[in-house]
């Protein structure tokens, strides 16, 4: 809305306001068109505000009763009506972190391979297949996790890795299957196509002259990727990662099937945990008391705030890294 629809030609002499009116309101249709588009454009921001407002209203009893302590306490007892969300917040961030640690290198690898190294005939099919991963419904990922991933992790991988890893605080305790690790792995597979697809577009947008310049200076292909192409597209890549992170934070069905749904904070990856989205999905329908329901809306508000915060950080990051080289930021 910053630029007027029809900018006057620069050399035009100043006009009287009546002439302006005549120019701007060339036809009634234009006015209607603009009003309709403005209204449409404002609906989404309004929706966002309404959602935030609804959440605050719904959460108000819990906010009054628990205050900010809700965010730092670990108790979750629907019987006596005492609630604290710390395990949920930690679990949400922890599973997303695990997912990003696994998914980002993989997705970047896929994107770099597809744009720089893959033979031409292989690029399109592989890119399509990776993007197809995004089309699989999350409950299917959950089922696959229960039937394939959990047994493989628990009975295949863990017995081999246990002697080497069990001294680490991340691998303490008994591994029954449903765990932060399992949820993180499934999340990484789910967010991978988003990060890979956007990163690929970003890398494709890097001008060929940049590549040719680097190669002409004697860089190897690896050096070209590492010192020229990735830095050129970094803003877009950060954006791709944030897109994946946003999806990981809010994912519900597959996570609840694999995480073990336990209200406890544990550093160990092989112990069960819980996430905000999973808890809401699990308990909302059968919330027995008003304060239970309100506490669930309160954690929804927390998740909402968390997403807004992460998006703000992402904007800031992109703004910072985009100064100087802006390639690919258009992909956002």
């Amino acid at each position, binding site marked *: 809305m910053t630029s007027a629809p029809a900018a006057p030609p620069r050399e035009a002499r100043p006009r009287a306001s009546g002439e302006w009116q005549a120019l701007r309101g060339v036809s009634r249709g234009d006015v209607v068109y603009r009003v309709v588009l403005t209204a449409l454009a404002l609906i989404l921001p309004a929706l966002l505000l309404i959602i935030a407002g609804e959440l605050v209203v719904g959460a108000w009893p819990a906010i009054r009763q628990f205050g900010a302590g809700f965010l730092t306490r670990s108790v979750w007892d*629907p019987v006596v009506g005492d609630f604290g969300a710390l395990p949920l917040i930690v679990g949400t961030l922890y599973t997303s972190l695990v997912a990003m640690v696994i998914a980002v290198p993989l997705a970047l690898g896929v994107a770099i391979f597809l744009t720089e190294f893959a033979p031409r005939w292989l690029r399109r099919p592989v890119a399509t297949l990776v993007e197809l991963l995004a089309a699989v419904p999350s409950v299917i990922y959950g089922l696959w996790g229960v039937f394939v991933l959990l047994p493989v992790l628990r009975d295949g991988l863990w017995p081999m890795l246990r002697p080497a890893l069990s001294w680490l605080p991340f691998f303490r305790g008994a591994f*029954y299957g449903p765990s932060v690790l399992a949820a993180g792995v499934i999340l990484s597979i789910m967010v991978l196509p988003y990060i890979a697809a956007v990163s690929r577009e970003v890398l494709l947008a890097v001008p060929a002259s940049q590549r040719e310049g680097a190669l002409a200076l004697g860089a190897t292909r690896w050096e070209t990727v590492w010192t020229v192409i990735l830095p050129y597209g970094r803003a877009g890549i950060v954006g791709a990662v944030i897109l994946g992170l946003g999806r990981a934070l809010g994912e519900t069905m597959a996570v609840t099937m694999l995480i073990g*749904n336990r209200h406890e904070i544990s550093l160990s990856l092989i112990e069960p945990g819980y996430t905000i989205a999973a808890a809401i999905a*699990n*308990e909302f329908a*059968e919330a*027995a*008391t008003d304060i239970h329901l309100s506490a669930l809306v309160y954690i929804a508000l927390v998740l909402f705030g968390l997403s807004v915060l992460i998006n703000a950080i992402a904007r800031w990051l992109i703004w910072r890294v985009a100064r100087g080289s802006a390639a690919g930021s258009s992909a956002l």
Partner: protein
Amino acid sequence: MVTVRTTLLAALVAFSSSPLAAQSEIRLTGAGATFPYPIYSKWVLEYTKTRPHIEINYQSIGSGGGIRQFMDRTVDFGATDGPMADSQIAAVRGNVLHIPTVLGAVVPVYFLEGVSQQLRFTPELLSGIFLGQITNWNDSRIAAANPGVTLPNRDIVVVHRSDGSGTTYVWTDYLSKVSPEWLRRVGRSTSVSWPVGLGGRGNEGVASTVRRTPGAIGYVELVYAVQNRIAYGLVRNRSGQFVNATLASTTAAAAGAMATIPASTDFRISITDPAAADAYPIASFTWILLPREATDATRARALLEFLWWATHEGQRFATELGYAALPARVVELVEQRLRTVSAGGRPVLPAGYGGRAARRG
């Protein structure tokens, strides 16, 4: 035959009194518990087959949602696996009837490789395991209840429901009755703060976790365990018998519990841990909620007739689908309750309604 004749009679009566009402479509909506959804949809199907002017729409959104929608009066009837709390009843100014429709049982399911016998659980074992005090299958207390069974040296992995559920209510209600420590530390509700264990979503989530985790123990609806052929244990009841959960022993639990309940009951009663010798101790009613004072006599009449049919002729579909039927004493009391429903100060059901059908059916 009886059904058909009653229907014809009812239609005739309705026709003679208010021809328009009999012709116009009646649409009833209900919402609530997921556990009785299969039997409710079967009932609706069978009932409306012969009564094309009635349409009944039941949405299984969960007991909590059923109670809330009933309290908001957005549905004609609610359905729940756990009774409404006193505060909730006060919020609708007591204008509610709890009508039990069928019975369900909850069984302990487990996965132990190399154990083929059906394990026996005492109340102390179940509360000890779910409190996290008994942590290995070779614990001497488990062995004492299961003479002759070789139990492996394996960690016990407790699996519970992660979603709020009437099944959890029944299970924790039972544990609260048999273990003072459970009552003090955990209590009874549709979702509780579990001392130990993994959470699975839904009966299927618990069952699939149990079946894939050696040493796991969980709890699911009897129907679910039977249909999916999951091993479940016998539970010792109050009179000291180890009872296998069956439809008959579940009905026996209700009959046993009703023996000590006054006829004026509002049916918000727990039938876990009854005294009867043949009763399976972890069982519960599932209820339909309807207003005691209706606003629309025609709709109320249609709903009452449906419930009357469901608690009489409809009961024979229960066993087919794995639900335990109501004992005769409960049906008798349900009849009395349904007769008390009024609209505008006058009873909705005529004085002699269902007399013959009830006695024969």
